[in-house]
């Protein structure tokens, strides 16, 4: 037997009397700051300040303190010389695979599984990933990220997305794998495709950023500028070319809260553990495969084959073919490998941008496969077109500026 309308309303009144508190509402400091940080006039300068803090702390902790301050000394001063002395038979294949170049003075140059592999994983990328996810979790738990989404909504609508696309975009700066998963929060297939493609192309992951800060610190700004321009321009083009809608959404903005220490620690541990279990084996495997390809002469053959494209069209040395192959396994590894190839500053910028845009790493690729074969094929088609067009354009800009 159902309730009558009067009985239902009576029930509503009874529940409301027991659960709703009545009183005078007053604005708290959090409310005042919450309002100011979503208004463009005050919110955009705040966003600039928050992002400045994000990158300043990232660079100071991961780059200056941990990697430059301790890890380089530990790996180059103790670990590498010990491995070079202790591993038997410096002329052998196993020495080349595990220790690398016997004459190398730094772990970047050695390129062995147990020298460069461990250094890149634990000395450079782990501190970068740790501090990135710490900052990200603090922003997320404090309630700032939804406000950033509101602020970015107008701009992101110009490239066929809405404000919440900022979440996968920022997540992608940590790792593209969770970022591809986060694209599912977007409303339409068109938005998901655009975001996934832009992530794979123009958002460098935290590992890659960490290694870029380490090996090419002077050119990181230019690389990021080229990637940002590419993100906006190709996003605009894709939003015009791809059919589908870009609906408005309502964003629920929570109040500001102090992040809970236990929650932050738990999230940080989960994400860092994910890196240790998923990414570290890929770094090791990447070095092993690239070393085997070098030994068999495959990379030399491929470099000769692709030389016209690389040298003439992209304006980079043909030796960058090897790092581009490694980039499919780990992009951070590929950037580390680039640092050992002699080239001009502009060629280095072009090569690092090419590594970022030419193909997603294998872990991201696996996530894209799960999004469906049609989406994947279309994304690969767009990737191929963009890398040819944008790589050539960067070379053309360099020629016009007289630096390429």
């Amino acid at each position, binding site marked *: 037997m159902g309730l009558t309308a009067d009985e239902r309303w009576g029930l509503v009144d009874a529940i409301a009397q027991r659960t709703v508190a009545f009183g005078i509402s007053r604005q708290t400091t959090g409310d005042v700051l919450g309002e100011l940080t979503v208004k463009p006039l005050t919110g955009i300068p*705040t966003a600039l300040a928050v992002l400045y803090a994000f990158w300043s702390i990232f660079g100071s902790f991961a780059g200056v303190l941990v990697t430059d301050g301790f890890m380089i000394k530990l790996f180059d001063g103790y670990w590498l010389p010990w491995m070079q002395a202790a591993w038997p038979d410096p002329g052998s294949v196993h020495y080349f695979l595990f220790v690398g170049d016997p004459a190398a003075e730094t772990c970047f140059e050695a390129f062995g599984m147990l020298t460069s592999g461990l250094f890149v994983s634990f000395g450079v990328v782990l501190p970068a990933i740790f501090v990135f996810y710490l900052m990200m979790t603090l922003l997320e738990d404090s309630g700032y990220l939804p406000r950033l989404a509101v602020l970015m909504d107008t701009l992101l609508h110009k490239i066929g997305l809405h404000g919440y696309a900022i979440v996968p975009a920022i997540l992608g700066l940590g790792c593209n794998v969770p970022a591809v998963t986060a694209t599912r929060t977007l409303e339409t297939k068109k938005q998901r495709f655009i975001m996934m493609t832009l992530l794979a192309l123009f958002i460098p992951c935290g590992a890659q950023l960490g290694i870029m800060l380490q090996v090419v610190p002077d050119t990181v700004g230019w690389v990021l500028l080229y990637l940002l321009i590419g993100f906006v321009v190709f996003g605009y083009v894709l939003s015009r070319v791809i059919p589908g809608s870009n609906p408005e959404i309502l964003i629920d903005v929570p109040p500001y809260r102090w992040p809970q220490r236990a929650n932050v620690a738990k999230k940080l541990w989960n994400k860092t553990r994910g890196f240790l279990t998923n990414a570290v084996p890929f770094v090791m495997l990447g070095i092993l495969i690239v070393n085997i390809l070098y030994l068999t002469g495959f990379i030399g053959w491929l470099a000769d084959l692709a030389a016209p494209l690389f040298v003439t069209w992209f304006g980079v040395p043909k030796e960058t073919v090897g790092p581009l192959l490694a980039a499919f396994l780990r992009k951070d590894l590929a950037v580390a490998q680039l640092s050992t190839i002699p080239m001009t500053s502009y060629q280095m910028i072009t090569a690092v941008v090419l590594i970022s845009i030419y193909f997603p790493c294998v872990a991201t690729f696996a996530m894209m496969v799960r999004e469906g074969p049609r989406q994947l094929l279309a994304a690969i088609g767009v990737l191929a077109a963009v890398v040819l067009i944008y790589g050539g354009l960067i070379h053309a800009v360099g020629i016009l500026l007289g630096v390429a």
Partner: protein
Amino acid sequence: MEAPCRGAELVTAAVGLAAVACGAANILVWAGLYDGIEIGIMAIGGPDFFRWVWGSLVVVFGGVMMLAGARQMHAVPGYGKVLLGVAMIGIIGGTDIFALICENIPAGEGAQFFNSATGFIGAFAPPYPPAVVLLPFALVIGCALYAGRADDGC
């Protein structure tokens, strides 16, 4: 809410004005219009785009917010703006100090890992960047404002 206090408003406006001036000077020095400026314990100017242009821009915005909120700092909108301005100057000053700490915990070139205590403390000798000099003033304003509002039950 407390009754408006002219002295507090003037101090806030003065710190805001100093932040705008120092931030703008930083950008002009970076752009090459002036050589580096040193006033007492404060040094303005440096080659790093990230720290000296982006950071200085944030200091300028922080100063503008403090100026905008100073006249009505005891009412909700003005209070919010001043607090946000203080936070922005605090972010730049805080990250400058954090960078200094990170740079000086490890020893420089050589076999040692950790810097000596005297070496570490010596790194904090003046001159300081403008945001670090402005930081104590901004923090005092921010804390006083926050405490006043908390007393008011907000």
